[in-house]
């Protein structure tokens, strides 16, 4: 009856690049061989035209794998050419931005399935209004303009009724007395005022301060960019907030269901004599059977919750444990839509159908949690150390209670982070900083989940499906196997244990296998995280236009400019002068720490003044001695290996550092690589403490690198950079393969955000020494005597 009714029909599907849309297209192609033609409404994006989007975003999806396998590639291509066509439709423009050809295509359609929507619960208010509300209205208007009367199947959501209790019937949604046109106008014009607000001095200053504290050492342009990013984020958050508050005030869970409800009002009002059916799915999750068990794209509602549960991020969750959590497998929704499409209403009165499981096969919230406990007990996720994570036991407190708890914890973690970021310990607190970051992320995500989804676990209603069941009753036995959509046909245990949970875990790429082959503590052996960089080196073998640029202090050697200075000065002084000298250094320490945090360049400038008046040749000699005594002892063996790998691959290697020539040049000479470092002005054989050029920190580092690349014909996009601190950001950003080595807390965050490789290099165990010469050695005594 379904296949028969759709035989020879021309169907338009909007939202076909989305999960539901492409599932519908796939099912039509596979199960309704005699369908006339399927027009896919796709908008050309800034990057690619509509036809390319069809290829890349629809047809290459795993959803079509089964079809390709069953028919063979050639037959599939033929089928696509025969049945599928693209209509360029832009729901964001009045009249849908149709060309003449497009209008003709639209006119030919006998069935229109409107499944385009911005489905995230936390979209900005204006985006939701544009896509969900105005998009639907424009679609109906455009259909009316063609003068034809295709059957319009509008895909909505079961939550358009807002937060109701008890039975929700398949009727027009409740009307809080709102005018959808007015709502649309208000919501979509929100952005302007918010943008303006974001540029007010107080706010811009606050964002600027935050950007400086995060990115200060990276230089002015980086701070400016960070400020702009923060402002953008602020605007988006503000719009999301406005949308959520507005929706909540109107009795809706979120902006998504609110705009969908308004859209229903609009469609019902506008449809005129066009036959209209509305399908309201509840929470759509992975497919039970078709095109393959577990077919799912993108994370939808329950997945983040399930993963958070498995990862132990949500140690507790709010909600009513006995409430019905209305989940419906995607293939059942697809079949519902097709069945509805095959049964147009006989009159102008719109028909409404719930695609929901609650009335036929109720799943309790506690039931899902129990299934999850069972599943993750058998297949635990693993943390970054490869340890199995235990599943939490949920006690279902109220949402407010839970949110308060999370916020309090978050405040503590943020305070700890504030302290750790300001510790002058660099990479040595990296682990602690990472842990805090992870904890903060955990709390942040938990809080977010509570805000977004908590409300759905408190829904105390059941969606009536009698309208839909009346269609089901008409479906002949033979076709019920091809197009099942009765929710009582499956068993939740099977669905979760065998289909959904495995899919979610697979898609999240969470660690599920214990790692083997642990290295001894303190080992500097090659670690797995370095393999991708090594592969990149291998790929660019033999290319002399590839550069590997290394920072030195903290990246190749566990030292800083202060330690070298200490060592060289102590070396040149008799031991009885040491205490006075040390006391003087300690007095200056707080000021240096402060400067270091603000800007690496300022710190270096200030610190190098200490060299004022020292004999250049003597310092050069001491620098050479420091090579054996300090540098080589504190070197990272992995760094040395990496440099050699680059050299073996034929790449150029450059040390780019703010350290002084007297200590870096001996190392560069030994390594046989080029070096660009700081030089102090020399007057009559003595150092003046003034730099010859601005210190290569912050953006200056980027410029230096660019200059070098231009001079030597280096392709930076194919090059590598290794650095440990935010002040090297300018350099890291320029190259194709940036590697954060032992990053400090702030660089670690940046690297995490941008997906840069992070490696931890260590000194060989047992080599830590105070940065002072051995006062008992003959060599020291000789040197002092001289």
């Amino acid at each position, binding site marked *: 009856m379904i296949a028969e009714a759709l035989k020879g029909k021309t169907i338009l599907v909007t939202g076909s690049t989305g999960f539901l849309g492409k599932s519908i297209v796939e099912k039509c192609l596979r199960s309704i061989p005699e369908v006339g033609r399927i027009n896919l409404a796709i908008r050309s994006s800034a990057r690619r035209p509509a036809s390319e989007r069809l290829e890349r975003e629809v047809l290459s999806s795993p959803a079509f794998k089964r079809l390709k396998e069953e028919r063979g590639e050639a037959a599939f291509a033929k089928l696509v050419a025969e049945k599928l066509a693209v209509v360029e439709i832009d729901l964001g423009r009045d009249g849908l931005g149709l060309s003449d050809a497009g209008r003709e295509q639209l006119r030919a359609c006998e069935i229109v399935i409107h499944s385009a929507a911005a489905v995230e619960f936390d979209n900005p208010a204006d985006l939701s209004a544009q896509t969900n509300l105005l998009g639907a209205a424009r679609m109906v208007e455009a259909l009316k303009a063609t003068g034809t009367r295709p059957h319009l199947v509008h895909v909505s959501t079961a939550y358009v009724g807002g937060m109701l209790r008890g039975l929700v019937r398949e009727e027009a949604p409740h009307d809080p007395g709102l005018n959808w046109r007015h709502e649309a106008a208000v919501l979509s014009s929100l952005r302007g005022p918010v943008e303006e607000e974001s540029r007010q001095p107080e706010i811009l200053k606050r964002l600027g301060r935050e950007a400086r504290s995060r990115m200060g050492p990276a230089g002015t342009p980086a701070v400016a960019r960070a400020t702009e990013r923060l402002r953008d984020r602020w605007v988006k958050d503000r719009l999301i907030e406005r949308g959520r508050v507005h929706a909540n005030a109107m009795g809706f869970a979120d902006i998504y269901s609110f705009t969908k409800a308004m859209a229903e009002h609009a469609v019902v009002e506008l449809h005129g004599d066009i036959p209209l059916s509305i399908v309201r799915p509840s929470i759509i999750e992975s497919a039970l059977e078709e095109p393959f068990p577990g077919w799912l794209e993108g994370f939808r509602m329950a997945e983040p919750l399930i993963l958070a549960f498995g990862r132990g991020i949500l140690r507790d969750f709010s909600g009513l444990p006995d409430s019905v959590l209305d989940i419906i497998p995607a293939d059942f929704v697809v079949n519902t839509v097709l069945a509805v499409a095959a049964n147009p209403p006989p009159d102008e009165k719109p028909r409404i159908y719930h695609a929901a499981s609650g009335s036929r096969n109720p799943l309790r919230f506690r039931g899902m949690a129990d299934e999850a406990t069972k599943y993750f007990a058998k297949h635990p996720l693993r943390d970054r150390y490869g340890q199995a994570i235990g599943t939490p036991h949920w006690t279902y407190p109220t949402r407010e209670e839970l949110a308060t708890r999370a916020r309090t914890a978050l405040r503590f973690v943020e305070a700890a982070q504030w302290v750790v970021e300001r510790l002058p310990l660099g990479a040595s607190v990296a682990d602690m900083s990472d842990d805090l970051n992870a904890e903060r992320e955990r709390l942040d995500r938990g809080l977010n989940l509570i805000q977004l989804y908590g409300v759905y676990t408190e829904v105390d209603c059941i969606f009536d499906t009698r309208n839909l069941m009346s269609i089901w009753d008409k479906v002949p036995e033979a076709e019920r196997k091809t197009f099942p959509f009765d929710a009582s046909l499956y068993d939740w245990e099977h669905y979760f244990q065998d289909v959904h949970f495995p899919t979610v875990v697979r898609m999240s790429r969470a660690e599920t296998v214990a790692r083997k082959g642990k290295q001894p503590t303190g080992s500097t052996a090659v670690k797995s995280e370095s393999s991708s960089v090594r592969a990149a080196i291998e790929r660019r073998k033999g290319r002399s236009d590839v550069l590997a640029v290394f920072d030195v202090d903290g990246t190749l050697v566990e030292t800083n400019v202060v330690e070298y200075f200490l060592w060289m000065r102590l070396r040149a002084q008799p031991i009885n002068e040491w205490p006075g000298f040390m006391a003087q250094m300690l007095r200056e320490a707080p000021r240096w720490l402060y400067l270091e945090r603000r800007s690496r360049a300022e710190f270096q400038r200030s610190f190098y003044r200490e060299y004022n008046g020292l004999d250049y040749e003597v310092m050069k000699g001491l620098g050479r001695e420091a090579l054996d005594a300090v540098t080589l002892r504190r070197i990272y063996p992995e760094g040395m290996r990496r440099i*050699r790998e680059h050299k073996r691959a034929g790449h150029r290697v450059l040390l780019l550092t703010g350290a002084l020539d007297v200590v870096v040049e001996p190392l560069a000479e030994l390594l046989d690589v080029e070096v660009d470092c700081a030089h102090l002005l020399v007057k009559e054989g003595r150092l003046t403490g003034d730099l010859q050029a601005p210190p290569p920190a912050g953006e200056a580092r980027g410029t230096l690198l660019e200059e070098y690349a231009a001079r030597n014909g280096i392709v930076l996009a194919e090059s590598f950079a290794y650095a440990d601190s935010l002040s090297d950001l300018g350099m890291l950003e320029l190259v194709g393969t940036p590697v954060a080595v032992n990053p400090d807390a702030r660089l670690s965050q940046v690297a995490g955000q941008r997906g840069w490789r992070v490696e931890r290099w260590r000194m060989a165990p047992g080599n830590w020494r105070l940065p002072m010469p051995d006062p008992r050695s003959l*060599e020291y005594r000789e040197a002092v005597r001289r």
Partner: protein
Amino acid sequence: MPRPGAVIEVDRNTPPVLFHFGEGVRLEKLPLGARIVYPPDPLEPIAHPERAIKRALAKPLEDDPLKSLLRRGMKLTIAFDDLSLPLPPMAAPDVRQLVMEEVIDMAAEAGVEDIHLIAALGLHRRMTEDEIRHIVGERIFSTFWPDRLYQHDGEDPELNVYVGKTAEGEEVTLHRRAAESDLVVYVNLTLVPMDGGHKSMSTGLASYRGIRAHHNAKTLLASRSYMNPPDSALHHSCIRQGQLIEDTVRVFHIETTVNNHAFPAIANFMQKRETDWSARDQAMFLAMKQMTDLAPPAFKRSVFHAMRAPYGMTSVQAGQVDAVHDKTMEAVRNQLSVRVEGQTDIVTMGVPYLGPYNVNSPMNPILVICMGVGYMFNFYRNKPVLRKGGVLILTHPCRCEFDAVQHPSYIDYYDEVLSDTRDPIEIEKKYEQRFAEDPWFRQLYRKSHAYHGIHPHYAWIWAAHGIDHAGDIIIVGGDREVVHHLGFKAATTLEDAFEMAEQTVGRYPSVTHMRMPPIMLADVE
């Protein structure tokens, strides 16, 4: 008359026995019936070493007196052993200093002006100025350093000349200065039977090209043991190379031996048998045990490495290499030999804080194995004290510690090679060339104070025969992860180690404890 070495059977009255434990010591109770092998007491040193040296130079073996070989205008090169000998370093004056001063005086008398002194360190690390000064003495150092007293560099493309090939195809290289000299005087100090003879020149002044001829797994597995030259393929190869060198350049060998008085008064208890410990020795032991149990490793190391051995010279002979070396071997055997009857199922040994390659640095895990399973295991003649397939039990903390300056290539070897394979032959195939030719290690060897890139491999294959011979190797008190990484078993206590050994050697194994150092050579019948 000093007591010879002895084998004592543990009975109810036997006190617990000393085990060296890196920079520390342990007293362990051995099972009844176990044997403890003690080294001989130090032989009486020669009363007037200077006179003995003069005598040896004046009446050399199968060669003309040194004086007659010296003449004005000649090129004279003095090569001497590096700081890997003796262990621990000798209290000043070093025997080599005495010999060299005598040779230089003699040369000066003869009007020789062109004198160079070369530290024959082979592929060992360059010594620091302090270390060289300790060996040659202040007088020579201030006169010759750095232009005419310097260290061999096996990677200098200019300074190593190819001498030729032996009948067996072994390549021979030599330091250019030595090759071009009219006379080379080699000043040796022999502590163990492995040292001296032809091996001095053929490894000390050679490059990797020459050394690889015998420093390889095949040769070492055929050296049973390399502490007994007649049974050592390593020495046969060195002799062939040495003979080729003697054909090319005139070499006058001076070899010295010292007794085994390895520990100064402060650690006198290490020198003595436990039954002989006085109250003072007991107190010193307790004090040291407390200190080493509590102190951080770096502090312990500085205390231990500051120890200088009060070695006494027991013989000096000069002249033609074979004649000289025969006498040297005789003197060494007199000092070191202990007769041991038959092999046992288990052999226990305490690995001390010091081996030839970690003077002034921590003993890294590879060197622990080189010392315990390599050198100490190989102190035998005829056959090992351990029966084939028996269990070797060592005590050492075996911490994951590497000296970044001296042992950079060891770090890579440990991390990259040993996590891949521990089989010497396979390592040679896959990694030898890479480590030997690594430019960074080459630079560190030449310019800094690092062992050659290939050196960790030599340290590892030094233990190849021991690993092959033992059915199981257990390291008591070793860091578990490190010991596993090396491919052995770790035990917390000696009792646990005996329990673990039961699987290999049964419930009632025979046990021998080699109580060294002071070192000894087990003559197994």
